[in-house]
């Protein structure tokens, strides 16, 4: 099981627990069309949309992973389902989309049959544009250790 430690650095390139506290457990991510759709487009000589890069926040709160709806639209993905989500204003139906998420630094590539499309537009954490929330559907296959005093987190999968 590969183990990845992500240290958060402050001034003087020293590990700074406050930087982790501010940013949260973030990973660089690329969102692209699922392999099956990429193959379908390639076989017909149609262009395959380029992956969209940004940042993903790991969280234990969300049942399913979420991707910004504008990213999913940019990739030309059509919805494959609907899920009811609990919101401040009551239950709201949200579209589900297929997507492929790649974490280049970790060498992790996940094909999602469905992620929830949500509006993350303009959400920046520590100057990084957030386009993905990683939920417990991914964490079900991982070990996540958040070391607050140490200023790092560990992800093993």
């Amino acid at each position, binding site marked *: 099981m590969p183990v990845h430690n992500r240290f958060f650095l402050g001034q003087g390139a020293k590990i700074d627990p406050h930087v982790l506290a501010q940013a949260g457990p973030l990973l660089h991510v690329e969102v692209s069309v*699922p392999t*099956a*759709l990429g193959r*379908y*487009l390639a076989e*017909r000589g149609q262009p395959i949309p380029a992956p969209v890069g940004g940042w993903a926040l790991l*969280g234990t*709160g*969300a*049942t*399913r992973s*979420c991707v910004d*709806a504008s990213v999913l639209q940019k990739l*030309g993905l*059509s*919805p*494959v*389902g*609907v*899920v*009811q*989500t*609990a*919101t*401040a*204003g009551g*239950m*709201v*139906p*949200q*579209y589900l989309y*297929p997507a492929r998420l790649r974490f280049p630094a970790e060498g992790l590539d996940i*094909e999602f*049959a*469905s992620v*929830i*499309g*949500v*509006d*993350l537009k303009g*959400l920046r954490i520590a100057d990084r544009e957030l386009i993905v*929330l990683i*939920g417990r559907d991914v964490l079900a296959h991982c070990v996540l250790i958040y070391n607050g005093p140490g200023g790092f987190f560990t992800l093993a999968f």
Partner: protein
Amino acid sequence: MPLEKELAFYEQHKAELLKHYEGLYVLIKGNELIGAFTSEAEAYQAGVERFGTEPFLIKRVTKEEEVGLIPALSLGVLHARA
């Protein structure tokens, strides 16, 4: 609204689908049941091969519907777009 027809079809036929396909993933396009699959990925593969980039519905056949919990949505920090 995408998938309106497919969702209505699922609701209309839910009792029958539960009888035959409980726990499986059904692929629905318009008013037609295309097939039932053991995984969501298999259903998606079949849907793309047949319908390409057009919307189609993949639904796990269960008595109780799933509720997605996203704390930031629940607190109103993020916004839901129906």
